[in-house]
């Protein structure tokens, strides 16, 4: 037995075997990693949470309703700040109306009222409306991202990405 083992040239033996196992291992690893990559689809069909809201110069001082129905967002320009205000009442989730005459959002369901800024001042609403992430694209377009939310009561409205200064 043992001399039989002597008979093989060790170096060769090892090198071949190592090459073999290394290559084999690498290949298997590669296949596995591919299988891992397989679990990340390249295309998905989820609804868009981002949208382009034109350019800053589109907006007058005050509340702009053109994205209210489509995207559920009020674009508000106030004191040199442009921000995207959620149109979901913080009370029970109804959709408030913008009353230009009284300069306030008024919820038809239970009468919560909000200032132009989105701060609640009357009715059952427990907290101000939420604001969404807003930014300028390199092309100069406004991009609103509804996945990121800023809440006043958490002091997030000072966050630079919660408004555009214009």
């Amino acid at each position: 037995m043992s001399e039989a083992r002597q008979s093989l040239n060790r170096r060769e033996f090892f090198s071949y075997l190592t090459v073999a196992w290394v290559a084999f291992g690498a290949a298997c690893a590669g296949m596995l990693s591919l299988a891992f990559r397989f679990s990340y689809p390249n295309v998905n069909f989820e609804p868009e949470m981002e949208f382009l809201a034109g350019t800053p110069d589109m907006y007058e001082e005050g509340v702009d309703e053109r994205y209210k129905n489509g995207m559920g967002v009020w674009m508000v320009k106030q004191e040199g700040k442009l921000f995207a205000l959620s149109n979901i009442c913080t009370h029970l989730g109804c959709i408030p109306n913008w009353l230009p005459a009284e300069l306030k959002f008024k919820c038809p369901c239970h009468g919560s009222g909000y200032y132009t800024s989105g701060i609640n001042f009357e009715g059952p609403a427990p907290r101000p409306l939420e604001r969404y992430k807003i930014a300028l694209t390199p092309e100069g377009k406004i991009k609103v991202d509804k996945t990121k939310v800023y809440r006043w009561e958490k002091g997030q409205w000072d966050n630079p990405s919660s408004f555009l200064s214009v």
Partner: protein
Amino acid sequence: MAANGLADKVRATQVWKSIFRHGPPDNARNRAAVVAGNVFLHLHPIKLKKSGVQLGYTWCMGGLTFFIFLALTVSGVLLMFYYRPTAEYAFNDIIALREHVPLGIMREIHRWGAHAMVITTWLHMFRVFMTGSYKPPREFNWGVGVILLVLTLLLSFTGYLLPWDQLAIWAITVGANMAKATPFLGHGGPGASLAQIGDFVLVSDKNDVRFQLLAGRFVGEPALLRFYILHCVFIPLVVGTLIAVHFWRVRKDGGISAPL
């Protein structure tokens, strides 16, 4: 040398020992231990007749069949991540697999694998017959083999529908119409017209075997679901079980056949 030294060190560690309960398989004891002590290997005998390792004799078709079966199981499971068996999505999902899902050849592997398995099964059987290996004591295992052959074909057949394209539904339609012609059980088969009490029709197009197979009169969404489940769950389970039996019997009937 170094490599060797290192290898020995590694072999000395507790971890290694805990996993491999034996030294390098270069002597009788260890070679036996490897095979006996490893859950995957232990369905091999420790020693076997030389003819059993000669490709010229075994053609290795049985082994390949089993391996391809495993490969198909893996790729099949992965495919299930991206496939929904509904008339609405099935076809689009297949397109997705081709167009944008990562590792775009997954479906190809599965489909060609399926074909390959059919081939290897046939050739395995061919070989077994040629060497008369079905003869005593292996009669029963031959029988099991035949069943496995049938199941293999069924697996492939049920899978054929899933892409939900013209090729699929019409191939299945052709196949299903054979079921229609089953004597006494299919409404197109001999004697079916006899099976009727007054106007109570026992075998008609809405209660015969084809209906059972397709869950309907023609190949539609219910059939798709039915075939999907047969293909992904039911038949594989049966096949798996029978494979176990098959291997077990191979061992028990004295391993790979050889002249007495």
